[in-house]
Structure formats: structure tokens, C-alpha cells
């Protein structure tokens, strides 16, 4: 399945992505905002979490009361500041982190599928001996790989940033926990595949990178529901929940990718060129 030709396409797509500001910028900005700026702000905010008026304003006590048993257990005995820092940086940030693989997958897939059509470079690829399947696999992998790599890289950076930023409050290394390991290596890849599958399907019907990017970005809606659900106390990220959401996303994502594969026929693509 992965022959020399497939790797050549992957290499090409990755080089192109890194050299295109419109594509590389979202891949850089989203992680920087989420993993550098936000943790520092939350860590500073945690310093005020003992103030009763702040606690009341943010409804922190209600949030603490709604925690599942294992999570409640893990923060038992912490000070107010530590509880806030831990909840914000470990749990509230978890669904936000999922935006990173999603954005990267959508951006790269939109460029790789619709962008290539728009730039009229796809036709030259269709005339190569590459089979439809090899070409599709190459395109899928070239979008998945950066999403996986950026996801894991972001996680490593976040681990360092969050422990440093919250050190004055926590006074120990508290990140990551088991939930984050499952989130990074199970749920985040499923989000990438789901985003990729949606963008591939959209790209078959639109002619420009921008259109594919904008429509493909609708895939972040489930992630927004997860964020809102967590803030509202409707859904709380712990290890079993993360695993279950990942399973659902994998099923949906793989289904979308397979549907995309079915429609990825050079004879169909060529009729629209």
C-alpha cells in the first residue's frame, strides 16, 4: 500500500504545506494560542481563585460539586487555587486541545485535495501510473501525518508549559494524567481522521481551497459541543469518556474516509476538470 510513489506524494504535500503561509499559519497559530497563551492566562487567574467573589462569579463550587468521583478524588485536599489550576489546565483544556489536530487535518486536506484541483496540478498526477487507491492513500496520509505529529508535539510542549506556568501554585509536576494520554493517542487521532474525512468529501464537490477549508471546518462543531458540555457540567472528560468519544469519532471518521475513497476516482475527477 505504501510504495515509493505514495511516499513521494506525501513528501510533496508536506513540503508544499510548510511553504504556504495560508496553510502553515493556522497550523502554528492555533497551537500557540491554545497551548502557550491560554495556559499562562489560566495560571495567573488561578492565583485569584481563593477570592470568594471570584469563586461565586465563576461558579467554581458548583463545578467542583459536579465532578465525577475519580476526578473529585484527585483534587481532594488541594487549595482553592490548586483546584482551579488543576481543573482549568487539565480538564477544561482537554476538549480545546482537540481543535489542534482538527484544524491541521482540515487545512492540509483542503489544500491537498481541493487546492490541488484549484491550482490545476492534480491533472498531472492523474496521468501518472499511480492507481486511484494509492493516490487517495497518499493524500489521506499527507493530511493525517501532520495532524498526528502536530498533536503529539503540541502535547509535549503543553506538558512543559503547563507545569512551568502553574508551578508557583502547584509546586509539583501534575501534568499529564492518564486521561490526557488516552486523549492524545486515541481521541486526537480520531478527531484528525473525522476532520480529514469530512474535508475529503467536501473537496470532491467544491473547486477551491477556501471553500473546502470553510466547509471542512464545520467538523469542529462536535468539538465545540464537547467544550460547551464540559463547561456546563453536562459532560466531563475522564478516561472512560475520552475513550468512548474516541471510539465514536473513529467510527464516524473511518466511515467518512471510506465514502471519500469511493468517490475518489480519476474518471470522476477528470470530468470536473
Amino acid at each position, binding site marked *: 500500500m505504501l510504495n515509493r*510513489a505514495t511516499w513521494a506524494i506525501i513528501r510533496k504535500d508536506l*513540503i*508544499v504545506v510548510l511553504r504556504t503561509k495560508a496553510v502553515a499559519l493556522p497550523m502554528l497559530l492555533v497551537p500557540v494560542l491554545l497551548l502557550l497563551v491560554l495556559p499562562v492566562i489560566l495560571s495567573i487567574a488561578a492565583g485569584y481563585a481563593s477570592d470568594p467573589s471570584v469563586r461565586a462569579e465563576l461558579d467554581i463550587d458548583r463545578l467542583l460539586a459536579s465532578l465525577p468521583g475519580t476526578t473529585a478524588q484527585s483534587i481532594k485536599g488541594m487549595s482553592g487555587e490548586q483546584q482551579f489550576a488543576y481543573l482549568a489546565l487539565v480538564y477544561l483544556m482537554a476538549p480545546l486541545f482537540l481543535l489542534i489536530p482538527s484544524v491541521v487535518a482540515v487545512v492540509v486536506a483542503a489544500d491537498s485535495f481541493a487546492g490541488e484541483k484549484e491550482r*490545476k*496540478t492534480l*491533472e498531472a498526477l492523474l*496521468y501518472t*501510473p499511480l492507481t486511484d487507491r494509492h493516490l487517495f492513500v497518499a493524500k489521506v496520509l499527507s493530511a493525517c501525518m501532520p495532524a498526528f505529529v502536530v498533536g503529539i508535539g503540541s502535547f509535549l510542549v503543553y506538558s512543559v508549559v503547563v507545569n512551568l506556568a502553574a508551578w508557583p501554585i502547584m509546586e509539583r509536576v501534575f501534568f499529564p494524567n492518564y486521561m490526557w494520554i488516552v486523549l492524545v493517542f486515541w481521541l486526537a487521532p480520531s478527531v484528525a481522521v473525522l476532520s480529514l474525512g469530512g474535508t475529503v468529501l467536501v473537496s470532491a464537490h467544491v473547486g477551491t481551497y477556501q471553500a473546502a477549508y470553510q466547509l471542512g471546518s464545520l467538523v469542529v462543531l462536535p468539538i465545540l459541543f464537547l467544550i460547551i458540555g464540559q463547561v456546563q457540567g453536562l459532560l466531563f472528560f475522564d478516561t472512560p469518556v475520552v475513550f468512548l468519544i474516541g471510539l465514536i469519532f473513529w467510527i464516524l471518521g473511518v466511515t467518512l474516509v471510506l465514502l471519500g475513497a469511493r468517490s475518489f476516482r480519476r*474518471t470522476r475527477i*477528470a470530468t470536473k476538470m
Partner: protein
Amino acid sequence: MLAVDDLSLDIRQGEVFGLLGHNGAGKTTTIRILNGILDPSAGSVRVMDLDPRRDGAELRRRTGVLTETPALDDRLTGRENLEIFAHLYRVPANGVDATVSDLLDKFQLSHRADQRVHTYSKGMKQRLALARTILNDPELLYLDEPTSGLDPVASHEVREMIREWGDQPHRTVFLCTHNLVEAQDLCDRVGVLERGRLRLLGTPEELTDHGDGGMEVDLLFDPDDVARAWAALKERVTVVSSSDDFGRSRDEGGGKMQAGGDDGNKARSRSRGRNRNGNGNGGRVTVRVDARADIPALVDLAASLGLPVFGVVPQVRTLRDVYLSLYIDEELEEDVRDDNDEGPDAE
């Protein structure tokens, strides 16, 4: 939409075949079908004994296609563009660097090889695209409008490269173009595609032949001698027409050269009319001869009649003339059809 209709073609190994037709005639669609990236709705296609629908990957390994736009990735360097396609065409891994460097040299792109393609001129992009197309040393090369949009110098360079590459008996070139000079210059045989249908097929010589193997020759005389030349020559050879420098002209009967003649001859008259009126060469008498070899005898005949000949201009019919006459005939047919269609309603 029907892009190609009932097209039947045999391309011979080793020839440069030109498929002519204006935009939308079905040339690009034909290339796509022949390479298995479009399925024909009916009929069968065999290319090098392979069925493009079933054996597309194997077929494309042995062919090269230069698309109408260069289809290069502007954000890659020239070298990267070639390297990636070398892998796609399975050039042996240990030979990729050498193959790419050789091609960059051959196409005079080595000095810009490591710069991104968006900095290249149009001609350079076309040369790079052509280099990419022959990376796998294809047995059959498809060229879709290879000089479209290029300046005359770049067009000449690209044509020379095509000529040099195709100058091997095992290499076949399928050239799609609406550049008729290019087709006449490069092609062994040409076909003219019109609205998806093949209207003409043959060598450029066959298509430009007057039908009986003969040709017309303009004999240039002193304007004062034209009337005498007309009278003397028409007794001995087939004189078609004459004119002097004052625009006075006469035609031999038969309607062959009547500019205002019947519709069927309108195109021919229009295309031939160029460069023949007021050309400052003095008087002209146009004579039909059976072959080019008869021209010296014709000049001798004029001299023996006391008619000094100041110039001889063989009227070579070009593919452009053939093509335009076909196109204009088509327009006229359509006009007639429209008139017929409108007739009953009008009544």
C-alpha cells in the same frame, strides 16, 4: 455533453501525429480517454495493446502527457518537481538524481533548478513540464497545446525539443494543437477534429494537395506584359487568373478562383487571396502545372514567347488553408441548416 463522437483513429508507432481542432473540439478529451482518466461512453480503445480502462496504470507507465497548462507545483523548485514525478514514474531510485540533473541540463534549466517554479517564466515552466513528461522515456508522448501562450522564441525552443525527442523510430508523438504551422512543421500525419468528429485525416501533403497532384504558380511579369502573357500562355497551358499593378484582374472560367463565387469556394478564395493583390511585384499570371518539376519548363516557355519572367511564386496550399476552408464550410453548412430550419416557421 458529447465531447468526442464516433472517433476512429489508428496511430502508427514512430510517427508524429497531430490532432487539430479549435478550442472545445474534443482534443483534450481524446487524450484523457486514451490514457484511461476518462471513460468513453461507447466504443473501444486500445493503446499499445492495452485497454486504458482496465490497464490504465500499466499504460500510463509507458506514456507521458504534457497537459495544456504546465500543472507544475509553483511552490516546489524545478528539481523537486522532477524528483517527485521521477518517483511516481518509478525511475530507479538510485538513478533519480542523475536523470533529473540530465533533464535539467538538456532543457537548459540547471541554473534555476533550485529556485521555486513561481519565479520561472512561462517558457521555462513549459520546458520544465516537458522535461517532466519524458522522465520515464515514454514510448508514446501526448502533447496538449505545447506552445500555447509562449512567445515565438520559446515556441521555437519547445518545437525543437519535441522534434529532437520524437526523432527516434520507437517514439510516437500525439500532438494536439490549433497551431497549424506547428502541425505542418512537426507532424507526419494529421487529423482534424471538429465538434468531436474526425473530419480529415492524412499527411500534411495529402491534405494540402489540390486533389489532382497539381499546383498553381504565379509568374511575375512587367505590368505592361500581363495582357500579352495572359493571351499567349492560355493557348498553351492552364491559366487560372492574372492581375496587373492597377488592380485589374481576370479569371479563367470555371469559377475556381472567383472571389465572389459560389459558397463552396468562398473559403478557398479568402485564404488564397492573401499576399496576391497589390503586392508590388508588378503583373502576375497564375498558371496551373501538374507538378513542381514543370516550373522550369514553364519559365522557359514564357521566355521563348518573349515574356521575361521576373519571379516565380509557387502557391503552396497550407494546412491553415485546409483547416480554414473546413471551418468556413462548416459555418456555411450551419447557416444553410439554420435557414432551412427557419423556413417553415417563417412561412
